[in-house]
């Protein structure tokens, strides 16, 4: 109980932040996006951290979620909350379908396969115009503000919903990490054959991790759709903007730990925003270019400890935060 206190304090403080920020302002939007990406990275962390499989295709599920809830809303007037659940189901299903052929693949090959899946979803979305509106994207229709309709006048509720989502996804991550599934995943990561021999159903456990991760990210796609109000295939199925970004956030923050994605998001997203501000106004692509250069530099500087670049910093901070 005593260790939970600092954690609870942080959550409460973060919940108070939106009240301090200008409700129509720029920074509350950044906060919302940061919280959202932290949640997404945490969901990725289940596969990338606990199951140790570097997936570069999670945008597939994110986009599925965003499109499912929005299309259901547009075509049938279904509330985004229900749409979110439907998106979660579809996302989990997609994860299942993708996990089966990719399960036996290692490292690079796995990353390649998942990247390809994400790309294919993007192409399908761009081309299946009757369902998705094609490259012109979809707009979430305006609905009179109400909680039930997931429609709000200000950004604050979106920030709070994102915070709640982050807390829930983190709780799920921790439950997995500490529970039987966590032990099994750690065993598989270290020696899959030995794990099998002592009774770990490696296929089933990996599938479970994949499905949970995919379903969660899909649901976060709905959150994004409701905040962004407009999106297109190239945004929600983006390799660089979604798949790579959430993997990097988790990795730089500390893959396999609960605090990692959170710290990573709060470091990277605001940094990106600042860089965008400073540089992109000069020229399109400049901030991304700088980001790429920074990424390469970081890896070269600490190739073995790419994962622990901010590890010591994180460790010092997280001694107060993580259990």
């Amino acid at each position: 109980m005593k260790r939970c206190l600092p954690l609870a304090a942080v959550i409460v403080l973060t919940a108070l932040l939106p009240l301090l920020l200008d409700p129509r302002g720029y920074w509350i939007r950044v906060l919302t996006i940061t919280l959202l990406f932290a949640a997404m990275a945490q969901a990725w962390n289940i596969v990338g951290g606990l199951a140790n499989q570097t997936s570069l295709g999670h945008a597939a599920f994110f986009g599925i979620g965003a499109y499912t809830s929005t299309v259901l809303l547009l075509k049938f007037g279904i509330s985004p909350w229900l749409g979110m659940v439907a998106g979660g189901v579809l996302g989990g299903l997609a994860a299942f379908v993708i996990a089966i052929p990719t399960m036996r693949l290692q490292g690079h090959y796995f990353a390649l396969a998942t990247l390809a899946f994400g790309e294919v979803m993007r192409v399908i979305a761009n081309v299946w115009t009757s369902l998705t509106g094609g490259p012109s994207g979809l707009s979430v229709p305006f609905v009179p503000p109400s909680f039930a309709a997931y429609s709000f006048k200000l950004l604050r509720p979106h920030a709070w919903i994102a915070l709640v989502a982050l807390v829930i996804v983190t709780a799920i991550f921790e439950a997995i990490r500490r529970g039987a599934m966590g032990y099994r995943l750690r065993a598989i990561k270290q020696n899959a054959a030995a794990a099998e021999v002592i009774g770990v159903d490696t296929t089933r456990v990996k599938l479970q991790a994949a499905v949970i991760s995919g379903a969660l990210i899909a649901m976060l796609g709905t959150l994004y759709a409701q905040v962004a109000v407009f999106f297109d295939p190239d945004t929600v199925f983006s390799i660089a903007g979604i798949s790579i970004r959430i993997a990097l956030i988790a990795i730089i923050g500390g893959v396999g730990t609960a605090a990692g994605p959170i710290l990573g998001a709060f470091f990277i997203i605001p940094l990106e925003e600042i860089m965008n501000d400073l540089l992109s106004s000069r020229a399109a692509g400049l901030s991304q270019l700088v980001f790429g250069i920074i990424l390469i530099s970081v890896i070269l500087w600490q190739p073995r400890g790419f994962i622990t670049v901010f590890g010591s910093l994180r460790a010092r901070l997280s001694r107060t935060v993580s259990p």
Partner: protein
Amino acid sequence: MTILDVRAVSRRFGGLQALSEVMFSVSRGEIVGVIGPNGAGKTTLFSTLVGLIRPDSGTVTLDGRDLAGLKPHRVASLGMTKTFQNVALFAESSVLDNVLTAGLLHHGVDAARGEALNCLDRVGLRGVAHKQAGNLSFPERARVELARALCTAPKVLLLDEVMAALNHAEMAEIMQLIRSLRDDGVTLLVVEHHMRAIMNVCDRILVLNFGRLLADGTPEQVARDPLVIEAYLGRSREAARR
């Protein structure tokens, strides 16, 4: 009462016939030794029994249940598991976590922890429960692996050279442990190179060479079998005669 029945199991890897028509049965509560020169197919046999390798032909039956096509985790849940020759621990996890994971086969996390501690007690390693598995000495790791296999509550336990790199005292302890496991109702198959240990503790011995079963009998019978002597035990006698 037959608990394990192996019929005409064969397995080829490319040009090498690793196992050839291997046939034997094991009764409940037996301690069966498996010996043979390096490369004879002993580890391949164990891997086939637990399902890591699929035989090209033949059947393996555990307690009346045909194990064809079953993955190792299924075989483990049916009651058979093995240890690895070069020890395959989860090096970054703690000793306790290694054993606990095996306990998850039949228990929830908390109960599995209790079981794991019991198994560690059994092999005398409770004191290092919280050490990182990769930091232990080789004999200690072999014992952790034994504890881990035990934690799956097996009916049939396959031990692959658990006594490698042990001194006499340690070997005696393991042999005692093996006997006590049998007293608890576990059937054991033991691959070993230490002849005296094998002859001492086993009820029966299987001799493999080039994937074939050369002999199947009591230690005395096997020691006198001319085929076995020629292939394995008696090369020095051959040399002495010349």
